[in-house]
């Protein structure tokens, strides 16, 4: 919609940012009869949940518009192409950071869209590290440029996540009817990864029975956890008896779990992070959620979205919002001011000004912010499928004093072309402390497959420092969890306040 048409209009709700939570809120508010204006400063939908081709991702990294949360991105290229595996730490690396960004960005501004990313890379080449020999860097540049020419078949998610089959996001998709627009595939297996190998986590009685790598005693221990913790009544009694100690301690002491068995239950099923303190009640609840999710859409507990779950769901909600009368503006910087003492807000978008009764915003649009969660991510494009016949899988790397979440995708979710595969790995914390851990996690999972291109990113989420103003609601960006449920819950809370 042209700006001048908007000038002077009033809206019940103005939503800033088109991330997952904002999209859900905008759609539900419009469905609840509110007039909605939805704005994003970026030219794409999805915010921190967006899904990009590699060239679009490079452009995103170089020309970042959310100036307070610019990511650090490193691109590692196997300079031997598909011929030979090269240690990640030896690979030529293009670094997009404070220093190199400006040089590349200036160039992008004046380049035609089609060649932007590759032009930017040319500019970045002198900043490549590990370039003890220029020949290697040149060959890496050539490899990467060739790849960028044909990167349409690669869909890279900024925040890869899966949906728990009996989770809040799936419920929301069903209730809102959005489920019909989004395609999913079952996440086939759940793996425990250590430096010395990859092992499948047995999830059901049948799995445990047929498993050949567990001893009889281990089988019995695992069955006891599954049957007693997964049972609401029994687990409540256990928590009462043990006085709600840490879940970790409950598994060790009450169920006598240790070693890989403990890691499988604690890290792969309950998904307790390294420095996360989860008590017994919460741990049991997580196991129950997992177990009850199995069998709803097949035997597995999670669903993986095609073309990127977060971004697809986001766009579907935005479409639904537009159908209910919501107005959309992308690529527009905005500023929000309180209108007067009687409440309400004045929102300026360049030449136009609109009034809003309530404002929902992603904290990157807030005037004062503090830093929130820092995440380190790795995205690794592999020359071949790993993990056998699996089309999608979830994995947890537990070794070297860290816990890393991994999501494996293939052509089945339209993430990569046939014959290739992609591995996402992420962990909470800065890249400088966690890069080594992420490298370990990837190497241990991908086995003999060759990582062609690997991206490392450090992303910073922001938190609004004040929520004192009434009628302003702040959403959250994607956290470290593997599923989309926290976003669904947070969005739901704001919707309830909005429609009250």
């Amino acid at each position, binding site marked *: 919609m042209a700006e001048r048409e908007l000038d002077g209009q009033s809206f019940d709700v103005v939503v800033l940012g088109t991330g997952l939570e904002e999209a859900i809120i905008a759609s539900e508010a419009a469905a609840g009869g509110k007039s909605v204006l939805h704005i994003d400063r970026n030219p794409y939908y999805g915010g921190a949940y967006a899904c990009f081709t590699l060239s679009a991702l490079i452009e995103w990294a170089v020309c970042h518009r959310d100036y307070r949360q610019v990511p650090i991105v490193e691109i590692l290229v196997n300079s031997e192409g598909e011929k030979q595996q090269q240690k990640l730490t030896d690979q030529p690396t293009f670094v997009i950071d404070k220093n190199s960004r400006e040089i590349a960005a200036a160039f992008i501004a004046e380049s035609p869209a089609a060649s932007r990313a590759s032009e930017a890379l040319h500019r970045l080449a002198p900043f490549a590290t590990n370039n003890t020999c220029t020949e290697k860097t040149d060959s890496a540049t050539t490899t990467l440029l060739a790849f960028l020419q044909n990167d349409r078949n690669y869909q890279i998610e900024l925040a890869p996540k899966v949906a728990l089959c009996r989770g809040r996001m799936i419920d929301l998709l069903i209730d809102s009817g959005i489920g019909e627009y989004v395609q999913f595939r079952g996440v086939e297996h759940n793996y425990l990864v250590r430096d010395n190998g990859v092992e499948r986590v047995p999830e059901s009685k*049948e799995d445990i*029975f*047929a498993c050949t790598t567990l001893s009889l*005693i281990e089988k*019995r*221990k695992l*069955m*006891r956890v599954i049957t007693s913790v997964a049972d609401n009544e029994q687990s409540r009694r256990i928590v009462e008896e043990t006085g709600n100690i840490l879940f970790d301690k409950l598994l060790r002491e009450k169920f006598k779990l240790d070693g890989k068995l403990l890691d499988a239950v604690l890290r792969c099923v309950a998904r307790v992070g390294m420095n996360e303190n989860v008590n017994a009640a919460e741990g049991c609840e997580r196991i129950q959620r997992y177990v009850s999710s199995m069998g709803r859409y097949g035997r597995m507990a999670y669903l993986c979205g095609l073309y990127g779950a977060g971004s697809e769901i986001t766009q579907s909600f935005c479409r639904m919002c537009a159908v209910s009368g919501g107005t959309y503006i992308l690529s527009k910087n905005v500023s929000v001011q309180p209108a007067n003492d009687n409440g309400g807000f004045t929102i300026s978008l360049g030449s136009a000004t609109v009034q809003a009764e309530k404002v929902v915003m992603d904290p990157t649009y807030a005037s004062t912010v503090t830093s929130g969660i820092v995440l380190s991510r790795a995205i690794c494009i592999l020359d071949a499928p790993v993990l056998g016949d699996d089309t999608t899988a979830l994995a947890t790397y537990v070794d070297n004093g860290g816990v890393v979440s991994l999501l494996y995708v293939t052509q089945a979710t339209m993430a990569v072309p046939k014959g290739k595969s992609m591995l996402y790995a992420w962990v909470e914390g800065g890249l400088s402390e966690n890069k080594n851990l992420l490298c370990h996690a990837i190497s241990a999972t991908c086995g003999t497959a060759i990582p062609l291109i690997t991206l490392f990113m450090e992303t910073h989420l922001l938190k609004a420092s004040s929520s004192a103003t009434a009628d302003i609601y702040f959403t959250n960006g994607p956290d470290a969890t593997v599923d989309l449920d926290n976003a669904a819950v947070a969005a739901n809370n704001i919707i309830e306040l909005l429609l009250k």
Partner: protein
Amino acid sequence: MMHGKRRVAAKEPTQDEKEEARQQLEQYCALNSRVMDLKAQSVFTADALDATRQLLELNTELHTVWNYRRTIIKKLDAWKDTERRQKMLEQELEFLMKVIRNNIKSYWMWNHRMWALSLLPRATWRKELSLVDKLIGMDARNYHAWDYRRFVIARLKDTEDSDAVDEQEFAFTTAQINRDCANHSAWHNRSKLLPAILTRVDQQRREEVLQTENELIQNAIYTDPEDQNAWLYYDWLLDIQKSDEDRIRLLHNKIAAIRELLELEEDGKRPLVELVSGFAELGRLQPGSVTDAEKEECMEILRTLKGVDSYHAGRYADMSSTLSKRWNVSDLCV
């Protein structure tokens, strides 16, 4: 009818549905009396055959009608000619495929299928086996399908290498048990196949096979000690041993395995019962081999079980009184 499927609550029928049901019932009753009349008048024509088809499609449980149908088929002219009989029975099998969808667990339907295939001039047993595979894939615990599978396999063995077929079947039960270790039909079929395999192999291979069986049982017991399938299979394995010495050896193994399991979980009901019956059997086979301490332990176990498992209290009391007399120890259940 199927395992693991949620039952859908019946809704109160609407007026239209009630009316429709009433009409259907009327038609069914009319058809039923027509078929019975035809049978009473000994009519064996193609028309009569068609009437039975219509009726059986509505209700698979009319064994009189199935019998009548068989009589008609055998009295038709087509029966005398091999080619026409082949065609007629093939049509009959197709008809049964339609009926099977209405009620997969109809004894009469399965009986009729066996009859048709037995008299088929050129039967295709492999094709029949793939049908059974499909049925078991749909519901792995459908005992009709398993029973029928044994019938098909028996016929298949007439035309193919019997030993190889047995081996394949044995592997099939392993796969089914791995898919669901509480599948009694699979365990049962395994027990039907094992004796033939054991008689064919030499002593060393026999030991190996029995060792694998033991491991399978232990695996199932550790996965779910309260599931009865593996325990029943244990008892059955004891029965088919060649000598009492073998049996005693197996019992010692069983008792040791249970002891190990009980160390992990001292309150497993089924393992405790099995421990007592293990000692009882051992004492019967080899008098004097059960120590006084073990006997007292058994009586104590039965007393505890009677307290915690009220549904089987009578059973524990009975076991306790029998053993107390046999072993001359005091019965703690009174």
